[in-house]
Every structure is written in C-alpha cells, then in structure tokens.
C-alpha cells in the first residue's frame, strides 16, 4: 500500500511540475527571478530569498515571489504558513531578517517610504478608528495621504458609494457590521488611488453576501489595472484569482492558475454519501484503490487512480460488508481538495525528513 502511494505521489509530483510550468508560462514574467532578469518592470511584486525569523520560529523562509502587474494574486495556505508576515514585509511595516523585496520596483527593505504613496494596505484585523465616524476615518486617511483638498470630497463620496456606505457616513466605525467594517477598511486603503493593494484576509468572518459585494469591488479595481495581492481562507475566493500561490511553512510550495492547481488533486475523485461515515471510513482503510481520503461533513471524498475502474469494485466491497450508502459518483475535484492534498503531502514529506 505504502509502495503504491509512493509511486502515485511521484507521478502526481511530475504532473504537477508539468502543469504548473504550463500555467506559469501563460502569464508573462511569472517565472522571472529578478537577480537574474534585467527586465523586471513588468512585475508588481518580486521577492528573492525573503526570510523572517521571530526568535526561534521561521515565519517566512526563502520566499521567491514574482507577481505580474495588474492581476489578482491569491495567497492561500494553512494558519501559520507565513501569509500575514509576507504581506507585512511587502507593506514595509515589518523588516525582513534577510532577502530582498521589491514592490512596483521600489526596494521595500531599504526604503519602504518611497512606496507608500502608491500602496494600499489592509491589515488582517480591523485597524481603523472605532470612535471616529466612517466619514472621519476616510477624511483622516485622505489627509494623511495628501489627497488634494479639491479632490477630497468628491473622491470620498465616490468611495462611500463604491463601498455602499453612504447611508452610514456619520456612524462610528466601531458600530458597523463586520462586513461594513471590512468595506470601510478597503475604502480607506483606496483613498489615495493606490496602484497596488495588499489585502490580508479581508473577507474573513464576513457573511456570503458581503463577501460577494467585496469581490465585486475588487473586480472593478482589477479592471482599473490595480494589482491586488490577497490572502484568503476561502477556496471559492481563491478560484477567482488569476494566480494562486499555496504557502506552507514560510514558502510557496505550489503556484499556478486555480484551474491548474485544481488538477493537482491526487487522481480522480469519487464522492460517497453514507449514513454511518465513521464506520465506512474505518472499513475503507482496507480497500486498496484509495490514494487519499477526505471527510467533508456528510460525505467522503475518495481519490483513486482510475474512478471508472474503482467505482464498481468499491460498490461490491461495501455491499459485501453490508454497508449502506446513499450515493457514489465521480466528480470534478475542487481547489479545496487539491489544497488539502498538497498540504498533507508537504507535511508527510516533512515528517519523513
């Protein structure tokens, strides 16, 4: 069994490499690493061997990023993967331990100030002034960023409309709903019309409708040519990005278009609905075809090398043991399954080493 898994893993890894190569090649310059490349003006964000240690733990490790201008780049990964640390370093509010980082061609390690007028940064936690009203928060950031007095009122009005906060302009920010707070945070980060946006889990803990509205706003910014780097725990959001980087233990272990990443799931997917999932899960440990197994609430996601061949065998296997199941069908793997698989794989590799 172990042997089989190993072989399959090898194959999958090979496939991954091929697929991600092709995915990357579709995006200009996504591959370039700036110390070697002379023309890096196309990339909005470039890092080279970026490291950040906190005492004994290494939060970001040998990170090489190359994000082309004008795209939405989604940074995903488990908690503690180093996403927030990466964004903080790129925003110039955290000094890297070593390595280089350029945003819009500016060296943010040496001189973060030069980038500030062009950067919009939205930290993970609500970071505005709760005792100031929506309007006062926007005005404060407009003044700090030096938005010309003549343009200020019009621009703030536009942002209020944009974020659908017009009716709440006088309300203290602390008294807004979670979704409205996030939209105000975004509006404040946009008040100076930045060319690049760094958003750290901007929709975390927000209801689905507000999330959708938030992404509508990001869509418009994308059309205006703003480069957006966003971290998110939601895979449906990751699928909306042009390019997704999967971060694990401080570095990108996989990068590609969502479509390409989705295909990195281990083999083909069979979805199994059964009343007694726990028992089924235990039994399936003795079923040889399965490469990987993930539990999703009321169903099991089983990965097999060949779904067509495994399905009848699995049905027979379960009937023999008198296990009831309500449905068993093949489905397209989603980004989430690929994500879980890739992280498990990385963890296993680490445990082995």
């Amino acid at each position, binding site marked *: 069994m172990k042997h089989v898994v190993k072989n399959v893993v090898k194959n999958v890894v090979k496939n991954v490499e091929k697929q991600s190569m092709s995915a990357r090649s579709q995006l200009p310059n996504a591959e370039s690493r700036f110390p070697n490349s002379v023309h890096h003006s196309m990339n909005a964000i470039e890092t080279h061997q970026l490291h950040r240690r906190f005492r004994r733990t290494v939060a970001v490790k040998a990170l090489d990023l190359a994000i082309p201008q004008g795209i939405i780049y989604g940074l995903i990964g488990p908690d503690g993967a180093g996403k927030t640390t990466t964004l*903080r370093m790129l925003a110039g*509010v955290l000094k890297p331990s070593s390595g280089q980082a350029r945003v819009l061609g500016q060296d943010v390690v040496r001189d973060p100030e030069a980038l500030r007028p062009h950067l919009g*940064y939205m930290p993970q936690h*609500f*970071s505005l002034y709760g*005792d100031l009203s929506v309007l006062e928060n926007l005005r*404060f950031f407009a*003044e700090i960023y030096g938005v010309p007095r003549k343009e200020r009122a019009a621009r703030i009005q536009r942002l209020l409309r944009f974020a659908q906060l017009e009716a709440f302009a006088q309300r203290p920010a602390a008294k807004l709903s979670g979704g409205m707070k996030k939209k105000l*945070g975004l509006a404040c980060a946009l008040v100076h019309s930045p060319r690049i946006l760094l958003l750290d889990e901007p929709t975390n803990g927000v209801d689905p409708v507000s999330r959708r509205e938030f992404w509508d706003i990001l869509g418009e910014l994308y059309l205006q040519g703003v480069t957006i780097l966003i971290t998110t725990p939601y895979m449906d959001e990751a699928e909306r990005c042009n390019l997704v980087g999967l971060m694990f233990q401080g570095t990108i272990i996989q990068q590609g278009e969502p479509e390409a990443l989705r295909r990195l799931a281990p083999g083909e997917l069979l979805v199994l609905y059964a009343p007694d999932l726990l028992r089924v899960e235990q039994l399936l440990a003795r079923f040889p075809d399965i490469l990987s197994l993930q539990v999703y609430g009321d169903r099991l996601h089983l990965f097999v090398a060949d779904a067509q061949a495994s399905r009848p065998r699995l049905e027979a296997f379960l009937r023999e043991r008198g296990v009831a199941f309500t449905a068993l069908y093949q489905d397209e793997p989603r980004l989430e399954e690929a994500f879980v698989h890739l992280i498990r794989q990385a963890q296993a590799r680490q445990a082995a080493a």
Partner: protein
Amino acid sequence: MSIRRLWAILRKEFRHILRDRRILFMVTVSPAIMLMAFAYVFSFDLNPTRMAVFDQDRSPHSRQLVLALSQDRNLIPAGEVARYPDLRREMQAGRIKLGLVIPPGFGADLAAGRQTQVQVLGDGSDAINTSTQMALLARRIDEWSQPFRSRALPQPVELQAETLYNPDIKGRWSMVPALLAIAMILPSMSVALALAREKELGSFESLAATPVQAPEYILGKLAPYMVFGVISAGLAIAVAVLWFRVPMRGRYLDLMGFTLLYLWATLGISIFVSSFITNQSTALRAVLLLFLVPSFFLTGLIIPIDEQARLVAYSLPATHYVAINRAVFLKGLSWGPLGFHAFLLLAMGLLSTVLTVLSFRKRVG
C-alpha cells in the same frame, strides 16, 4: 515634516480624547481628585504623641517646662521615669514616641543666666511623625525659654531643630504643592496608554503603511496631552489653593510655566518608553514603575533626598517639580533661583522628544 499630516493627527487625537469619557476624565479632573486623596493620606499633620520625661533636675524650672509642654495638644504626657534606661525601654515597647531628658543643673543654669541643654529622644521607627514632633517640641521649648533670653544669652536652652516657612509644621502646606508632581503624572499615563492602544487595536499597522512621518506622529500625540495637562494642572492648583488653603506666595504665571516644562519632560519620557511597548497593561506598569513609585520615595516628597541617590533623584522630573512647587508656593521664588531645576526639566523634555523621533520605527513586531 508636513503640517497637513500633523494637523490630521492632532485632530484625530483630540477626537479620541473628547469622545472617550474615561480618557477625558483622566486628563481633566482626575489629577485634582488624586491630589485631594493623596493630600489627606500624606498630609502628615501631627498625630498626638506620647512623651515621657526623665527629669534629673527636679527644680521648679524643670517642672515648669514639663507642665508647659503638657499643655500642648500634640503631646500626651506619659509620666516620668526614674532612670534613663527606662526611657529607652518604654520606647522600645512602643508606649512612648518621644522622651525628654532634663539634665541636672538645668534650673540652676537658667537662673544663673548660663546656657543649658535638653535632650530629646524620638522613635525613629515612625520617622515622619517623630521628626516633625521633635521639631515642634524644639519650638515649644524655645518658646518656653523666651523669658530667660538676654542679649548675652540668645538661646537659653540649646535646641537641635529649626523649621522655616512653615512654623506650625503644617504638613499639608509642604505636601500639597509636592503632591502636584504625583497628580500630574496622570497625563503621561494617558499618553502612554494612547500609544499602546493604537498598537493594540491595530490602527497603528494601517498608519505605519501611510506616508506619515515620526515627528508628525510624535508631536501629534504629545501636543493634545500637553494642552489637557495644562487644563488639569490648573484644576489641581485651584484645589491646592482654594480647598487646602496653601498660601501662594509666588506668581501663577511662573507656576504654569514650570508646569508646562514638567509636563513636557514627563510626557516626553513616557512617549519614549511606550514607543517600545505594544500593549496597554505593560505601558501602564512601565509608567507606574518609572514615575509613580520612585517619585514617592526618591524625590524628596516624603523623605529627604538621599545623598547617595542624588543622581537618580535628579534624573526624575518629579524631583525638580517638587522642589519648584514648594519654592513657588511657600517661598515665593521665581525663575532666577529655580533656573537649575527648570533647565533640567527642559533638557529632559527636549532630549526625550528628540530621542523618540530618532528611534521611532513605523514597524509592527
């Protein structure tokens, strides 16, 4: 440095203060309230104290003296002892705090117009009360001996202590102006909390990513607390003068000038320290440890400045403000004689502000 950004920070900071009732309370009336509370706790007005007498003379003069002293409301006569060691034993047992020793020949000396002596023993374990009591006792003996005074004998009974400016040793007169130094620590506590709060709530992270510069941020924090510091100092001074009836022998304008320097020094140091701190409870503890605790014990507020700790004492802003306040209120002194203290306060304010601006980093973690 941009005036526009400084102005934005200033307005924001004033709004924070005016909209949070707790902060507003802390930077306006609470120093006056703190002054009142502490003035009652630390007034050290005399507690009536038990005194025993060892009269070796047993002359009419010595009895007169003992009788005169027993009239004083502050002294409770605790009888006579027959031997000197008894006096010590009584004190050791805590039954008396004061002992008066009248030497043989006391009456004869006075009658002959010669100088004589008395010895006063005080219980050192109750330093503050006893020392004032001893000084008071010395004054009473001096008063009693006036009839024996002549040109040839200016001090018939030799005394050890002398008190100036506050002849009745009103603890409150000397304590209230000094306690202003403690009460005016509250604005620096508030500013330290304000800096830490900004980091704790996360708004500092947003701000750090903007083009705001260190001097704008630091001055934007400092100035509003200076303004409210002056307002609250005005209220506390009013309490000192109107409620505690401390005589104001100097000029109010001088006092406000000195107060401004003290506020700058304390706020400046507070901002410098808290710029390295990321949460409110640590900031609060730092300010308490830095100002409140040493200010009570090292600045001459309660116990005189220890010679060996003079350098430490002089590096505390409160030391200078205590000295200045007592001098302005009770001695009526002004800038000339107090220039040294004023200069050191100015230096502390300037130095801490410059250091903060230079060491300030727009970073988290």
